[in-house]
């Protein structure tokens, strides 16, 4: 493989395009190649399958190429072996990965390489060095996405001047009209109503979109590939720009298809076509556990902080005096106060660097506010009056998302209820995390679950559905800096069906929707919140259909987040005495893919539980 790439690159401009294939391979050899995992991956035929997941016929050379890898191989070889003008439509330019791979199998050795300048310019093949998988995490406090997203990036030489932002990246997405109705959007996303395609752009554009506009941290996982493997992947990415798929939000999404693309260079497949749900973090987890030619598949991890993360991270490194200067600057709307003026130039640079991030963060939340742009301009001018040079801040020490818990969960636990006695609860969650899940790879002080089902058994009751939450979102967007506009809002949204085993009027399974709004803040290591929840539900035995339920609560993490507790008290309008109820839940300990939970709750009745959670 090592010798092929330079020849391929250098020969293209020198040799006229005359096709002369090497001796025809035997039928047995062709059969072996057609069943080779690489060829199957180039055609996106899943393991143990025989039909490509690429749906547009234009991607295939043979009429039956989508369902017959052998026929596609024969047709591809014939296509490459025939004469073609050296234009951008040359077959080698449409299928550079196929051509590269077939040459590496000892075929087409005498076929001259086409110029393919469009592809080579796009992939920057002479400078191509490696590839990366980019994970964009979710952020509950502000942006439009929680579950994360994946990109692929071609990497050119690291020492290339300003290269990384200009590297080409591959994105996978559904084609959605700008003015799509939200309900139609959801239904079509779930049930295959959209076509999905790949698109490519310079990495800086995705960086702008995700980390600057949507305030999402990016995590780059650089693949441990050779230059030749990086070429193969980049060439295949180019081919993928001419592919189309049916999009399903749950299982044929960016995570699934980029995972399938990565299999081209991985030693073993990481995706199964039968998984009902595929999440980006699961693909990252599997990649980290994979190998490429026997070596760990990932050779480096880079954290690209969002604008808000950068601002907060830097602000918390300021000295008390520097923080005071920053606060005075903000309070005085840009007037340089005495605290700032008395700082050293180095400290002034630290303060204005933080303020630049602060104002740009605020602008990202309100792009129409001209006064914010004026304030940012003032800070920039102040920075320009100081000596040039990067300001020292320590790098982020955030935990990479793959070290967090898996997306899906199973939690069996024992229960004792003062009314119903001993029991057993079996909870399954499709995704993603709750308030007590360790913070790695998730928005801190938040919960996001989709499809959480609990089955419960008590001695004198049948096995029954205790709850089916369609969605549960909670966000305690703490303001860690104290500066205006930097979080502080708490909100929640929950909907589905549930019974309330703590209230004498709540034991039938009822539909409900609950929303809450309030404020969250931190006191030392504790996170406090005060909210008012409003709920509508099917009428209960006491005739309740609507409830307003104020609540107060806190979370506290012990031993570096090894353990965490959450307690809250809430006015329970639906119970017998309309009293304040309370509950405390704790994660006692946790490993990579498990934790131990226990808790106690009281309204009309009292209940305690203990169990283990398993994640994958």
């Amino acid at each position, binding site marked *: 493989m090592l010798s092929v790439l330079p020849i391929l690159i250098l020969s293209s401009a020198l040799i006229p395009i005359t096709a002369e294939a090497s001796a025809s391979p035997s039928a047995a050899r062709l059969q072996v190649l057609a069943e080779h995992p690489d060829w199957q991956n180039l055609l996106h035929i899943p393991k143990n399958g025989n039909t490509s997941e690429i749906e547009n016929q234009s991607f295939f050379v043979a009429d039956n190429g989508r369902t017959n890898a052998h026929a596609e191989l024969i047709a591809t070889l014939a296509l490459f072996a025939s004469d073609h003008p050296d234009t951008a439509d040359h077959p080698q330019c449409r299928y550079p990965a196929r051509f590269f791979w077939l040459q590496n199998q000892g075929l087409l050795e005498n076929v001259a390489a086409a110029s393919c300048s469009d592809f080579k310019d796009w992939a920057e093949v002479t400078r191509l060095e490696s590839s990366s998988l980019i994970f964009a995490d979710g952020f509950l406090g502000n942006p439009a996405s929680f579950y994360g*997203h994946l990109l692929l990036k071609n990497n050119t030489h690291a020492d290339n*001047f*300003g290269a990384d932002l*200009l590297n080409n990246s591959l994105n996978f997405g559904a084609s959605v009209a700008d003015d799509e109705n939200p309900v139609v959007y959801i239904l079509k996303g779930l049930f295959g109503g959209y076509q999905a395609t790949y698109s490519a752009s310079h990495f800086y554009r995705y960086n702008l979109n995700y980390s600057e506009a949507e305030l999402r941290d990016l995590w780059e996982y650089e693949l441990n590939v050779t230059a030749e493997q990086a070429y193969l992947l980049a060439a295949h990415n180019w081919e993928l720009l001419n592919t189309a798929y049916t999009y399903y939000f749950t299982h044929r999404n960016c995570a699934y298809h980029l995972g399938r693309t990565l299999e081209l260079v991985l030693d073993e497949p990481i995706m199964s076509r039968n998984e009902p749900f595929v999440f*980006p973090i699961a693909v990252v987890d599997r990649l980290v556990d994979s190998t490429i030619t026997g070596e760990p598949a990932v050779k480096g991890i880079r954290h690209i902080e969002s604008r808000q993360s950068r601002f907060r991270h830097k602000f918390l490194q300021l000295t008390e005096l520097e923080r005071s200067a920053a606060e005075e600057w903000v309070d005085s709307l840009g007037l340089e106060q005495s605290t700032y003026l008395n700082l050293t130039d180095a400290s002034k640079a630290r303060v204005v660097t933080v303020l630049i991030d602060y104002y740009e963060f605020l602008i*990202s939340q309100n792009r129409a506010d*001209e006064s914010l742009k004026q304030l940012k301009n003032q800070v920039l001018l102040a920075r320009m009056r100081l000596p*040039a*040079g990067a300001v020292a801040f320590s790098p982020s020490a955030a935990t990479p998302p793959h070290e967090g818990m898996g997306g899906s969960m199973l939690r069996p636990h024992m229960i004792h209820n003062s009314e119903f006695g001993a029991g057993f609860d079996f909870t399954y969650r499709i995704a993603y995390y709750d308030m007590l899940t360790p913070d790695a790879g998730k928005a801190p002080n938040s919960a996001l679950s989709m499809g959480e089902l609990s089955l419960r058994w008590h001695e004198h009751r049948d096995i029954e559905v205790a709850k089916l939450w369609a969605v549960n979102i909670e966000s305690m967007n703490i303001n860690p800096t104290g500066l205006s506009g930097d979080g502080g809002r708490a909100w929640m949204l929950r909907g589905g069906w549930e019974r309330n085993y703590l209230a004498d009027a709540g034991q039938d399974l009822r539909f409900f929707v609950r929303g809450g709004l309030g404020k969250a803040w931190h006191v030392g290591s504790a996170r406090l919140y005060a909210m008012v929840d409003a709920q509508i539900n099917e009428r209960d035995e006491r005739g309740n259909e609507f409830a307003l339920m104020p609540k107060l609560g806190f979370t506290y993490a012990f031993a570096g987040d090894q353990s965490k507790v959450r307690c809250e008290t809430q006015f329970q309008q639906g119970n017998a005495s309309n009293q304040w109820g309370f509950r405390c839940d704790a994660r006692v300990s946790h490993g990579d893919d498990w934790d131990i939970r226990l808790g106690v709750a009281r309204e009309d009745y009292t209940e305690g539980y203990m169990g283990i959670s398993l994640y994958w």
Partner: protein
Amino acid sequence: MKKILSAGLLALTVSAISAPAEAQSDPFGGLNPWLDCGIGALIFPDHETVAAISNIIWDLGTTAVTSASVSPNSCNGNRIVAAQFVTDSYANLEEEIAQGEGAHLQAMLSLMQCETAAQPAVTTIRSNFADVMGNEEFVTLTQEQKAEALFYVTEAACTLS
């Protein structure tokens, strides 16, 4: 909205640099990328709460950024790519110019083929663009107009360095 520099700003920009004014008035050989190639800043989705709620579970391949740009064949080429980059990345660029270094600044100089003279050029850009930014009119400009001013200042600095 007119996307080319106003006469006042052009004068302001030119006064901040020492290159001949006529070199700045026709930097693309008759082609103004902001006007003729439709270069515009990236348009980001609204992040109000309603939008956040409606989109929360739909990001597994549906988040998109759109661009106002169109690219007729005459608008291809490195300088147009550079103009688009400067427009898209303007917020990062003004920050890195204030600081005197940064990845976006490096990328811009790379696109404008100014790597070899990068350090003196950055010093010149920092000084000259501070003058441009200090003008009262500057904060009233659109992102595209600010990017255009920065482009001219950078091109002049690279030419002179």
